[in-house]
């Protein structure tokens, strides 16, 4: 290991690549240390599909206008005000410049995907999805002379005073050390470390599924926090959605999502309903159901629909369980048959006139006298065959992370760490206190990745 590098970037996803490309264009010699093997490079970015982007007029694939004020208001709605105003506005304002930058560095966009028309104005979709974005960025980075090492697991950053002195990593069974001038951490949250999740959530976390990469174990994050790096965020907060309970433990990605909840009733393992399934349109509610299911016994839920609703939502990758009677379905799903029948009958009796039913907008077809109510799309479940899906909590990424300022710089209680910057999910907690806004993770990664790259290169020069 005789080569020297100006900058070491830890991580290999969107934020890491944006920072590496920016720094290399500023003339820095950059090394990317990616824990994953090449087929799994890119962290959670490989599962993403779009980027939420402010725009004052039509921009690339985006139509009309999406103002800073509207974007910020959307963010405040989902975070319940738990956000850093200054950093959030910085991310929103800069997002507009990012889109042409992304195109110039190989990313291609496409019209909104079928089933995502509600996002056509606010979110720009990557042609081919996040992995194609990652591929394009790796091509660009390598053309700029960025060196990439796969299966390079960083184990320790040596913090001495206000400087990172050394980066230790394992590669192909050997330990290595590098001493770059600047270091950028872009290695995600800790959600793939079930023990850490369990420390925050209790044993319930054992039942969570991880929607993305198994390589985000928070090793660098833990190492820096242990040395006094300032953190932000609550360890129990994360982006978590309700996904198909049959999804793989890791890396199930988009195909495990279930969009049937608004047309269903959702019960727990005791066949009891626990929340208003029809509170709002699904794109605005899918992110709360992860936590709702996590609060149920066994961290599992069961969505029940009947034949008339089967074609109203995007197909899931797993076929639903199917039976001619509610009791038969209960048996297939390991639910108490009598209990499920009673719950369905009680729900059906509370349904009113379903003639105003409209699947894509809030139709106020509601139950009366039922607790909890179902306030939209409440049609009785009567038409055989009946279908059921199990639901589990799928964690996308955790919010506890490194606290950064508007230059993406990290700090200790004594002040800034002069040569350490962070970007992407590992610092997203600085902006997302709770809740999630579709496509905002990629915005944070792109904006702060570019800032971190620029600052790290300026320092190295």
């Amino acid at each position, binding site marked *: 290991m005789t080569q020297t590098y100006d900058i070491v970037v830890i991580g290999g996803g969107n934020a890491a690549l944006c920072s590496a490309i920016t720094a290399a264009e500023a003339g820095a010699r950059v090394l990317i240390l990616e824990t994953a093997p090449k087929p799994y490079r890119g962290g959670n970015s490989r599962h993403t599909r779009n980027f939420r982007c402010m725009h004052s007029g039509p921009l690339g694939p985006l139509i009309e206008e999406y103002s800073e004020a509207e974007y910020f208001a959307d963010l405040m709605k989902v975070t319940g005000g738990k956000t850093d105003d200054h950093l959030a506005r910085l991310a929103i304002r800069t997002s507009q410049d990012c889109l042409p930058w992304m195109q110039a560095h190989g990313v291609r966009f*496409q*019209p909104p*995907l079928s089933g995502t028309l509600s996002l056509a104005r606010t979110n720009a979709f990557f042609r*081919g*999805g*996040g992995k*194609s974005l990652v591929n394009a960025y790796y091509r660009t980075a390598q053309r700029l002379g960025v060196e990439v090492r796969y299966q390079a697991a960083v184990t320790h950053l040596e913090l001495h005073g206000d400087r990172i002195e050394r980066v230790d990593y394992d590669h192909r069974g050997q330990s290595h050390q590098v001493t770059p001038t600047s270091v950028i951490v872009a290695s995600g949250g800790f959600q793939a470390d079930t023990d850490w999740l369990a420390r925050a959530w209790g044993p319930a976390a054992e039942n969570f599924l991880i929607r993305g990469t198994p390589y985000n174990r928070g090793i660098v994050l833990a190492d820096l926090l242990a040395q006094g790096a300032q953190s932000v965020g609550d360890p129990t907060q994360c982006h978590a959605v309700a996904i198909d309970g049959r999804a793989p433990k890791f890396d199930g990605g988009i195909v495990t999502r279930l969009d049937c909840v608004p047309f269903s009733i959702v019960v727990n393992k005791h066949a009891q309903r626990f929340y208003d399934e029809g509170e709002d349109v699904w794109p605005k509610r899918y992110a709360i159901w992860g936590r709702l299911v996590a609060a149920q016994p066994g961290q599992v839920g069961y969505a029940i629909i009947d034949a008339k609703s089967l074609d109203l939502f995007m*197909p*899931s*990758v797993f076929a639903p369980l199917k039976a001619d009677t509610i009791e038969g379905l209960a048996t297939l799903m390991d639910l108490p048959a009598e209990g499920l029948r009673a719950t369905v009958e009680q729900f059906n009796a509370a349904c009113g006139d379903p003639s105003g039913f409209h699947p894509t907008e809030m139709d106020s077809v509601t139950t009366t006298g039922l607790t909890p109510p179902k306030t939209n799309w409440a049609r009785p479940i009567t038409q055989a065959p009946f279908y059921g899906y199990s639901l589990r909590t799928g964690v996308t990424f955790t919010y506890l992370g490194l606290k950064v300022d508007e230059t993406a710089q990290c700090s200790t209680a004594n002040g800034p760490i002069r040569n350490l910057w962070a970007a992407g999910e590992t610092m997203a907690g600085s902006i997302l206190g709770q809740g999630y806004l579709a496509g905002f993770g990629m915005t944070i990664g792109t904006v702060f990745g570019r800032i971190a790259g620029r600052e790290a290169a300026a320092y190295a020069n």
Partner: protein
Amino acid sequence: MQTELLQEARRQVEICNACRYCEGYCAVFPAMHSERAFGDGDLTQLANLCHNCRGCYYACQYTEPHEFALNLPAALAEVRQDSWESFAYPSWAARRVQRSGVLIAVALVLGIAALFWAARFIGAAGGDGFYAVLSHNLMAAIFAPAFLFPLVSLAISLRRYWRATGGGAVRLADIVAAFGAAARLRDLTGGHGDGCNFEDEDRFSHARRVAHQMVMYGFLLCFAATGAGTVMHYLFAMPAPYPVFSLPKGLGLSGGVLLTIGAVWMAALKLRADRRLGAAHAWGAEMGFVLLLGFVALSGLALFALGATSAMPTLLALHLGAVLAFFLLTPFSKMAHGFYRMTALVRDAGRKAAH
């Protein structure tokens, strides 16, 4: 058709249909996303719409080592290959030719031998130029059936295809749309216009698209040259040989050059591409077919250059023998793909119009 190939394609397509990230690459995905369940005919149609551009493979988050093990280009290539073999008439011929480059080489040798034999034992009846070797009537007697048989065979195959995929009435607008897509090879543009992924993993390039169009337009020019000659012979009583600045020679020369370069380029790209993303057992026959096309073109050019020398009779037998083999193999070789693709594009244009 083979159920295990269809079953594997169905498994993969159901995963794709829950993801939809690749919707912008080509015609396969919008067609797929308009369905929720996939019958054998649906899968056959999707397979024949797929141009094996591989964009979806390199963009896929579920390729191996992921447990979903998606490889849609290969799954569709297998179904496509199998559909050509089972719709062919007679299908036993396709099952052999589509799987063996050696068989294509054997057909080539037999074709050439047949022409040598004809030249030697039947020969000419005192004509000029090429007709001094083989009389015009003899050439027509050999090539008219060799040309008509593939047309009849392909017509039967396409009818089988249309029925299996549930096609309805054919509209002129759908045919126009299909020709438009094929003329530009739209489905190898990647949707964004950067081309496809073929010879260098996830790098987008137009190499395969351009090489393919050189072959296609080169072939069409050569075909037009033959057509022009036929018309001049019968309608205007202007028999060959033709001067350099004549329609048959001008078309044939430009077509021959395009076809030769295109075929060599296609073969070179094919050597660099990852074989696991195509129909594994068809690789040799596909390569054999590309080389046969290249040989037809190159021997035609040689004949053009050396037609006035003593090598002419030998070159004529080589060229016409290769053409004979090519024609007779058309319904059973990779050449059939053009006809199925056009049919699938017509079918897809009809689907879009109905939506």
